[in-house]
């Protein structure tokens, strides 16, 4: 039983780190549909560097470094140029799939290889990233709700004009929030390949980035609730095999769709009472 719980915790960590990072982003008024692509790139880079150097920690570092160009491109278009965040994110995802798959095939040949990636050390079934993820929630919670940085950041997501009139730069705040989101995406992606997966497979993120984006509203834009939402969905993912392993007569596809149904169901129940940041996904033009 405890072992199962630890397993759920471990497998939920990439999702949770990505979702908590996305919470910061959305609180600043940005929705990062490109999270999926960022995680994929991070997973690939972390795996390759870890294989080359034998060090998973260097892999994580490289994954964070790999976010820089993505972060620059995405936020140049959304923050500076005021383009639609959903579209830019969608395009970023396409780029990430193309880039990682092409690089993978160029490196490992067309027929591919089963990659064995050096993994993060574990203690009692959990690794450093799990602890980091758990620690991250109170820290980011404090940062968002008890610090000036967080106050200004949240204001940027609610009513950017007020931020500007108070003498802050909305663009700068949003760049910073996006940077936090990108670093979290890097950690989440890296954890997929060198933490839980122990391998890299093309398109291995399999929609986790999208789910993370959705779970932020499920968690009502609060890091602790977002973590809880992730654990709930992680639990549902656990169940989808649990029932198959125990050979229930129910169609197994029902359980495959379970995490999404759970997320949607909870959103339907709590949706009316939660409030999205008012300026979410709206570009801010500083010259207006």
């Amino acid at each position, binding site marked *: 039983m405890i072992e199962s719980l630890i397993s759920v915790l471990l497998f939920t960590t990439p999702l949770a780190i990505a979702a908590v990072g996305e919470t910061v982003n959305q609180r600043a008024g940005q929705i990062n549909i490109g999270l999926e692509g960022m995680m994929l790139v991070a997973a690939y880079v972390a795996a390759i560097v870890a294989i080359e150097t034998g060090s998973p920690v260097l892999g994580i570092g490289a994954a964070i470094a790999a976010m820089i160009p993505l972060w620059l491109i995405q936020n140049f278009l959304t923050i500076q140029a005021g383009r639609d965040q959903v579209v830019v994110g969608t395009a970023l995802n396409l780029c990430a799939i193309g880039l990682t798959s092409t690089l993978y095939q160029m490196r490992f040949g067309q027929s591919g290889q089963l990659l064995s990636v050096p993994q993060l050390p574990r203690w009692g079934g959990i690794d450093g990233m799990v602890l980091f993820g758990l620690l991250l929630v109170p820290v980011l919670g404090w940062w968002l709700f*008890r*610090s*000036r*940085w*967080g*106050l*200004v950041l*949240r*204001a940027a997501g*609610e*009513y950017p*004009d*007020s*931020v*500007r*009139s*108070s*003498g*802050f*730069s909305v663009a700068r705040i949003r760049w910073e929030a996006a940077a936090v989101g990108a670093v979290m995406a890097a950690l989440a992606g890296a954890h997929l390949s060198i933490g839980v997966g122990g391998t890299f497979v093309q398109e291995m993120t399999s929609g986790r980035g999208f789910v993370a984006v959705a779970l932020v509203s499920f968690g009502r834009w609060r890091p602790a609730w977002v973590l809880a939402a992730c654990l709930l969905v992680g639990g549902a993912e656990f169940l989808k095999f649990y029932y198959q392993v125990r050979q229930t007569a129910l169609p197994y596809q029902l359980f495959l769709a379970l995490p999404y149904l759970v997320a949607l169901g909870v959103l339907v129940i709590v949706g009316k009472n939660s*409030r999205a*940041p*008012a300026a979410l996904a709206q570009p801010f033009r500083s010259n207006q």
Partner: protein
Amino acid sequence: MLALAPLDEEFFGGTIHAVLGENGAGKSTLMNLLAGILPPDSGEILVRGTPCRLQSPRDALGQGIGMVHQHFMLVPAFSVRENLALAQTPDRRGGLDEAKLIQSAVDVAAELGWEVPLDARTEDQPVGVRQRIEILKVLASDPEIIILDEPTAVLAPDEVDDLFRVLRQLKARGKLVLLIAHKLSEIVAIADRVTVLRRGVHIATANMAETTAEEIATWMVGELPPQLAGKGGVGSGSVVLRASGLRARGDRGEESVRGVDLEISGGEIVGLGGVDGNGQVELAETLCRVRPLVAGQIESGGTVAYVPQDRQVDGLALGMSIEENFLIGGLSNRDLVRLGVVRPRSVKAWARRLVETFRIKIGRLQDPARSLSGGNQQKIVVSRALDQSPAVLVAVNPTRGLDFAATEFVHSRIVEAAERGCGVALFSTDLDELRQLSDRILFMSRGQLVEGESAQSLLGGPA
């Protein structure tokens, strides 16, 4: 487009300096330059004798310049405390020492005798309180120069008095108060100096003591406006709108209309006044069936036309063309839309006619409504509402933010409509307007209607 021609002006500490002008005169542009919101194309600004670059609000704050914007710069979802903290000097390091950070704001509030509900949600506060928070935000950093952009536009008379009391205190402490306002009477009451702009050009600057209201009005519009038309016609007798036992909820679910009975006869203008936030907007929306009824009945003798309070928020689609903005009010007109299909030629001809009758200054009908000045935007809203020959017209602050000439025009149209037999419910926070136009005046207080005379006491003094 040149919003402001080259301008030289000096402002002195310890004065209340009013900046006047009609819509589009360049008042806000000038203030935005001083507050660092817009960078100047040319010229320089000297603060206390030293030239300084005001590239952002941060620079302006650094120079001791604070601005209270026409539109609130408060985060609706934040607590009042958080909004006050947000306005503190731009330094994002460290934790949020709330007590220390907002102490100065609280101190100022105490000095002014204002009560501030620190832990309440900002959006739940009435407009007057929000205006106070906005002012506290600026005063907390103890600026030397305070700019207020049309602070009185949404305030009820007693709130205006309160504000003016505070401005006088600031003046007494040697600060410069820059005030933008439309209502000449208010300016005469408070300003020491006045600057008038017209179409971006500096017309005159004078000490209040050395000039008269008439002279200022001449500077503003070029020539004195004609006297107001008399009161509207007498009611035709037949009731065109009958509302009984109306109850409705506000945006946050609170009971904002609590049992209203109202009858309006054809040709009658009923003025509905009162301190903002007492359910006027909700009542207006309920009468127009924009807001759902909780209880009660509304009977009307024909179409009910609506001129909402805020033209940009409720009236116009700024990105759509002028023609289409007319059509917003004409969708039920069988000449314009038949069987769900729009007839472009009829719409065009109709829009042209309205533009001519209402003397709306536009470029082309295809231009976006955004390109028009506020007065002309309001004319679109009013014209399309009146064109339906409605049985009832519900108008909320129809002249808010309009200049003298445009206000006159809108007033005369409302009177005309009443003469044609339309029943008018005129909601306004401007008592002058109510007195000028209304056949009878009712006041709203806590979601209920009270008769005119007894309302005087509600307003905290003679109206």
